[in-house]
Each structure stands twice: as structure tokens, then as C-alpha cells.
């Protein structure tokens, strides 16, 4: 049996691995087969991670975290977790190809997934002009007019990034002000290629084999209008990825895994949550990393206490 299995390979998972490995827990980290490195793998410049005054590319930062986790003896498995059993003293984590892992503790750091608008056209035109990844797909919209839907930091980052390729970028937002941080807002406001469409939501996308236009509906008076665009980038936020632990771990009303106060302890002993999957509010690379640290320390503490109990039991029996 292992001391610790970590599920997830974003800043939370890797940082938990760095701490746990340095504490000689010999952790196993299940990184996923196609999404290893998490959300930062789909970003370009990260300007707010402390220690990188010139900024750092998201994928490069994740490779460094992985390297640091490996350096202290983390075993990294590029596979997907299919099922977990978290109750009791021995937890089981099943994977697609690499077998089952039994462990005394588990850190769930599965992050979050892009939120969809939730309209039929979105699915139908996915890969035909509807995208969730500006860094992957912006290239294909050279000289075109496109739209970004959303009002947060990631929407501003995508819109600004997309002006490298697109002729014009509309930002469609359902309110009349942005959630995004001041610096990201200013950057978007100052960009001549970006035009804001306030108080509107996307209710339809037209086009047979490619996106041709959006149907917008005013959130003020319900008026519908058409906006001709060749592409739509969806950046309306993320939802915590909790499908693996449904029915086993308690969730909050926000849908995140419920933890005890500032700790990472879930409702099950020996199971800890870290990163975006427990965080409905901040969701930064740095806060996720810090949260991974908390989880590793909590797991270490739990294992030490249990070892103490075991040895007391042994002494009592002898």
C-alpha cells in the first residue's frame, strides 16, 4: 500500500507532490493521459506567478513543477483515473491502463473544466468555429472577425491574445461591467481591435459547416440581434471537476469539494482536497499551489498520527 496518491497535475497536484516527496512519503501522482499539467498548459504568458519577473509560459511553468516533483521521488503516471473508493483505511484509485493503486491517503486535485454556454449550436459547431482554447485555435482566425463571450480575466486574456490574429474581436458580456482585474480590463479597453457588446448573452449560433453569426439576446429588454462573426471563443468560467467523487465526498453549494475551514480535510478521514476543485472564489495558479501545500501537510500529519496510533496499539498488545 502507498502512503499517498495525488489525483491531478495542475499547480495544486504538483505542489502537493513536491511537499509530500520531500517528506519521504514517496507519493504517486496520477497526471491524466491527455490533460497533464492542467489548465496552464493552454495558456501563454503567466505574468503573476511570483518569482518570474519577466513572466513565464504556462506550459514551461508546469514542466518545471513536474521536474521539481520528480526530483524528490514522485512517481508520475500519465493515465486517467476511472474510479475511486475513498472510504475506510485503505483507499483505492483505479486507472484506465496502469492498474489500481491502494493508498492510506488521497489528495483530490482534479481542478475545473471549461463551462459551456449550454446551447445546442455550441456542441454542433464545436471544432467548426466554436472553441474553448484561444492559444490552440486563434491561429485559424487570421484576418477574421470573431467573438469572445465572458467578462472575467480569462475572457480578457483570450480577447487580447486573439487580436494577434483576428481583424476584430467582439467581447460579448451579459452585464454592463467586467469581473476581470483592472490590468486585464485596461489592456482590453486600450486595444483598438476589441469592441464590447454589453448586456447581451449568446442564445444561438448560425452556420452549417462553420460559424457565421451569433444570435444575441439583450439581458435588459430581451431584444434579439445578430452579430456576424467567423468564430466564437467561450470563456465564461469553469466548473469544479468532481464527477469522480460524487456520492463519496460532500460538496458545497458552489459544487466544490467541502473542506474543513482553512484545512484540506474532506468529510472522509485520509482524503484531502486541493486547488480549484475546493476553491469557488480565487482559482489562481498560486492559490492552487498553496492549497496543494496545505493538503500535503495535512496528509503527512494524518499519516504520522495514524502511525503513532498503530505503534501504541502494538505496544498495548505486546
Amino acid at each position, binding site marked *: 500500500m502507498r502512503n499517498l496518491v495525488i489525483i491531478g497535475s495542475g499547480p495544486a497536484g504538483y505542489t502537493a507532490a513536491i511537499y509530500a516527496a520531500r517528506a519521504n512519503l514517496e507519493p504517486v501522482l496520477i497526471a*491524466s493521459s491527455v490533460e497533464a499539467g492542467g489548465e496552464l498548459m493552454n495558456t501563454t504568458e503567466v505574468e503573476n506567478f511570483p518569482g518570474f519577473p519577466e513572466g513565464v509560459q504556462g*506550459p514551461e511553468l508546469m514542466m518545471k513543477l513536474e521536474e521539481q516533483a520528480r526530483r524528490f521521488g514522485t512517481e508520475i503516471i500519465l493515465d486517467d483515473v476511472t474510479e475511486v473508493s475513498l472510504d475506510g483505511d485503505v483507499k483505492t484509485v483505479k486507472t484506465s491502463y496502469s492498474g489500481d493503486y491502494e493508498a492510506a491517503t488521497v489528495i483530490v486535485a482534479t481542478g475545473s473544466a471549461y463551462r459551456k454556454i449550454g446551447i445546442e449550436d455550441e456542441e454542433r459547431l464545436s471544432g467548426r468555429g466554436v472553441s474553448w482554447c484561444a492559444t*490552440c485555435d486563434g491561429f485559424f482566425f487570421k484576418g477574421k472577425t470573431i467573438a469572445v463571450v465572458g467578462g472575467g480575466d480569462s475572457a480578457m486574456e483570450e480577447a487580447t491574445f486573439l487580436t494577434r490574429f483576428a481583424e476584430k474581436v467582439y467581447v460579448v458580456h451579459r452585464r454592463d461591467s467586467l469581473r476581470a482585474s483592472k490590468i486585464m480590463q485596461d489592456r482590453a479597453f486600450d486595444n483598438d481591435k476589441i469592441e464590447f457588446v454589453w448586456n447581451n448573452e449568446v442564445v444561438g449560433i448560425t452556420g452549417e459547416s462553420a460559424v457565421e453569426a451569433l444570435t444575441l439576446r439583450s439581458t435588459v429588454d430581451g431584444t434579439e440581434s445578430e452579430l456576424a462573426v467567423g468564430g466564437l471563443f467561450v470563456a465564461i468560467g469553469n466548473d469544479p471537476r468532481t464527477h469522480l467523487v460524487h456520492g463519496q465526498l460532500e460538496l458545497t453549494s458552489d459544487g466544490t469539494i467541502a473542506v474543513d475551514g482553512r484545512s484540506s480535510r474532506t468529510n472522509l478521514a485520509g482524503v484531502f482536497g486541493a486547488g480549484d476543485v475546493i476553491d469557488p472564489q480565487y482559482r489562481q495558479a498560486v492559490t492552487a499551489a498553496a492549497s496543494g501545500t496545505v493538503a500535503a501537510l495535512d496528509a503527512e500529519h494524518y499519516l504520522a498520527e495514524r502511525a503513532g496510533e498503530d505503534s501504541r496499539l502494538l505496544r498495548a498488545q505486546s
Partner: protein
Amino acid sequence: MSTRDVTTQTFQSDVLEASKPVVVDFWAAWCGPCRMVSPILDQIADEHGDKLEVVKVNVDENPQLAAQYQITSIPALKVFQGGEVVQSIIGAKPKAALEADLAAFIG
């Protein structure tokens, strides 16, 4: 059998005139998910090389092909049979999911 690179010049002979079904992986160096799916495609090529071929098209170096096949999202996999696109798969997926998507060709 492993994967090989195909260009605008070789696309006709390597893909459109191939006898077996050909999975074309449209990718780019700057696409993180493309890097993740690439080794999985190598495995699929190794394991199912008798039934299909897997080739890669770098969209940076071959923009005409990307435009011709209306690529707007990568990684994009297109399966060609008899010179026609018979299936499209968008986005990086785990091996099992890709094998399920390709079941008609490797089953």
C-alpha cells in the same frame, strides 16, 4: 508501423491515394493538447498499423491543407478513406476514447 509527417506535396499520394484508412493528425508545436495526444497516436499506429495508417500534418508548415479541410480547432483528427473524409474527431482524448471513436476502422 509508426506515424510520419505528411506535407502539402505528399498529401495526395500518402493520404488521398492510400489503400488503407488514414488518420490525419492536424497539429502545431504551440498547441499543448496536441503534444499530449501525439504519443497516444504513436501507440495506436503501432498497435493497429495493419488496419490503418496515422500521419501528421503540421498546420504552421502546411496552412493550405488546414484551410482546405476547414481546420479551426486542434488537435483535429480526420480519417480519410478513398480520398474522402469519413470521420472527424476534435480535441485531445484519452486512448480508450480515441480507440472507441476509431472502432469502425480498428475493431
